[in-house]
């Protein structure tokens, strides 16, 4: 235990030393102000990368004298707390990390200061073009670069290498292959206690986000003008939730229940990640940040026994990798904006981002994804680099109704998953509910 602590202390010290060495490439003294005596408060999600943020924050204190306090909250609580604080002009937090899909809601509510001028003033340090294109897209709204995409995830499929070797089957690439592979591992005496696959089936955001994450790989799209690469994806928001592709996809979700553990209908992100880490699942798809959990021998029984692949797609189609994750923004009501911008400039810079990634943070820059040290430490990074090439930034809605819209779709998808409605009935219901919602809010 003592040795482990010593090793981890040495690692952190080495990281900080490396951070300082790399930081010397950028002349931080001229880039950053003196913020001695200030305490900068950052509000973020309690995803695994919060520890990586804390691991590198002392570098900023050493350069500017400002203390950095990082507070984490759960997904719903963070959304609620940040927006409520904004509606009350609360500036107690200087930097807000928000989910990329909340940007429309936050921008519309006037909660964020735009990063556009700051980036234009200092393009080399911000190195905007080094962010993956879909990451950069997540942090932009209505043509403006609003925030910095520091914690971007891609959805990958993870599979147990030991089980696949034993079964002698190939890694699935299509929905049909996925079903067959999942069936191989479920209720099979050769794989006792193992189930094939668990999807994000829980009512609301979990099932709703899953539908948006898979729909492009199923050959569909969520609304009329949201074609991949479209310059105006929000021009015509007429929902296409009950298209044949969508109905087939929801039927696929329903079929996959047979290959999950009992109660898989109520599984969301944590239940799936925990079951996979406990060795109960042969495959899952999940955001890249959670691969850390499965690869940590302290939390996982399958560390070193899994690999990543691109998400499966419909027969004859192609994978469109879902992109998500966290963007760092300056609170428009904050009282220490200079210090906040300096922190973001420093934290999002190439060298500090690399350190953050090596400490377990999600790589959001192309340079970090291609870094040999990062790839050696986190083997799935190479797949991540492939995933970002085919990612589409508008895979989930990012307008002000995103939260409600995803929940509305999720409620109906879940009804199909539990067999309360057929896939067609459920998606007709979703089409009706979402159309009503968009009309009520003047978006149709």
């Amino acid at each position, binding site marked *: 235990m003592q040795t482990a602590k010593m090793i981890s202390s040495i690692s952190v010290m080495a990281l900080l030393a490396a951070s300082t060495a790399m930081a010397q490439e950028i002349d931080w003294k001229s880039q950053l102000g003196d913020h001695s005596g200030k305490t900068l408060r950052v509000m973020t999600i309690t995803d695994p990368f919060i520890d990586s943020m804390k691991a590198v924050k002392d570098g900023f204190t050493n350069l500017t004298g400002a203390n950095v306090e990082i507070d984490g909250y759960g997904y719903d609580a963070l959304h*609620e707390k940040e927006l409520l604080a*904004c509606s009350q002009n609360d500036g107690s937090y200087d930097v807000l990390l928000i989910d990329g899909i909340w940007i429309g809601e936050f921008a519309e509510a006037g909660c964020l200061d735009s990063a556009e001028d700051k980036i234009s003033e200092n393009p080399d340090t911000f190195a905007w073009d080094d962010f993956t294109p879909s990451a950069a897209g997540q942090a932009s709204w209505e043509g403006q670069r609003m925030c910095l995409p520091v914690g971007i995830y891609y959805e990958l499929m993870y599979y147990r290498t030991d089980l696949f070797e034993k079964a002698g089957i190939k890694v699935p690439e299509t929905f049909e292959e996925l079903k067959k592979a999942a069936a191989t591992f479920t209720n099979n005496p050769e794989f006792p206690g193992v189930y094939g696959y668990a999807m994000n089936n829980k009512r609301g955001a979990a099932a709703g986000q899953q539908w948006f994450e898979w729909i492009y790989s199923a050959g569909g799209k969520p609304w009329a003008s949201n074609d991949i690469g479209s310059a105006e994806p929000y021009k015509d928001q007429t929902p296409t939730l009950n298209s044949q592709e969508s109905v087939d996809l929801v039927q696929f979700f329903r079929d996959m229940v047979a290959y999950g553990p009992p109660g*898989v209908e*109520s599984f969301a992100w944590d239940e799936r990640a925990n079951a996979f880490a406990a060795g109960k699942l042969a495959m899952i798809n999940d955001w890249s940040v959670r691969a850390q959990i499965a690869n940590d021998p302290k939390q996982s029984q399958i560390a070193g026994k899994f690999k990543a692949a691109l998400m499966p797609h419909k027969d004859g189609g192609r994978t469109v990798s879902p992109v998500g994750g966290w963007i760092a923004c300056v609170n428009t009501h904050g009282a220490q904006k200079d210090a906040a911008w300096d922190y973001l400039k420093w934290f999002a810079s190439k060298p500090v981002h690399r350190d953050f990634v090596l400490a377990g943070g999600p790589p959001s820059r192309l340079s970090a994804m291609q870094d040999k040290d990062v790839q050696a430490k986190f083997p799935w990074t190479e797949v991540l680099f492939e995933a970002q090439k085919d990612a589409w930034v508008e895979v989930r809605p990012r307008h002000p109704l995103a939260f409600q819209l995803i*929940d509305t779709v999720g*409620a109906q998808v879940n009804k199909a998953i*539990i067999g309360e409605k057929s896939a067609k009935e459920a998606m007709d219901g979703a089409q009706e509910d979402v159309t009503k919602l968009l009309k009520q809010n003047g978006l149709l």
Partner: protein
Amino acid sequence: MAYAVSMTRAPKEATRRSFLHDDRFQMMVFIAPTCIFLALLTIWPFIYSVYLSLHAVKLTAMQRAVFIGLDNYINLLTDPLFLRAMLNTGMLAVTSITCEIVIAFVIAKAFVSLSHLKWVNGLRSLFMIPMMVTPLIVGMIFSYVFNPVLGIANYLLGGVGLGPVPWFGGSTAAMISILLINIWQWTPFMMLLIMAGLLSIRADLYEAARVDGAKWHHVMRFLEIPSIKGIVLLGVILRIIDTLRFFDVVYVTTRGGPGDSTMVLTLYAYQQNFQFFQAGVGSAAAVIILVISIVITTFAVKLLRRIEDE
């Protein structure tokens, strides 16, 4: 002249003194802090909720509120999800409270019968623990206990040869699981009340019943139940109000699912207010919940008074 001045002042001072000593004035002074407290923290928020409920307004854009009359109420009362939430809340209240009363009565009887034993006091205190735990924590504990893959409930069932149960996976199973959690947490409360009622029955009444040859069910029907009726009804009122506010366990474990099977009124109002920030709809839902609470409580209190009079 000086005499004249003092003559005019004296009655005024006397009037002021008598006003300060007036009982009604003193009552007003003592009641004033409570009135101010109620006005600021209860009545004003309620009036503001009613005002918001008549508008189409998002919490993040309050300045863009549009008056829409009763549209939010009409939309709510025609929204299948809200109606389902009302039905689920009602069902939860009836089933849960009925089970709590029956189980609590049996346990209270056991504790009263064994009250001469020393260790019973300790056991009774232990029995109170569930209701002392924060409901949010109860939800988290049971989300682990009922986890279909890693939870202890299915592990124990497996030990006696029973298959794993999808506790929160199916519509019926999820509702039963929520009911079980609610009953587990609040039976001790009902038991405490019933036990107090049973202990208040005079020993000579039991003795008289015994002399008259009454059997246990006669004692229960003609002596114990009439004696505890009032206190049980009080417990029922408190539990109905509690159930109308029931939120934490559902929020942590099922989020109203699977489907809409465990959606309750408070979760619906919470989602509208704090997840979707639809302050108008959320306020209308809150006002409806309040009206239901007031109607039920008024009816129950009247019933309670009638029982007391009897």
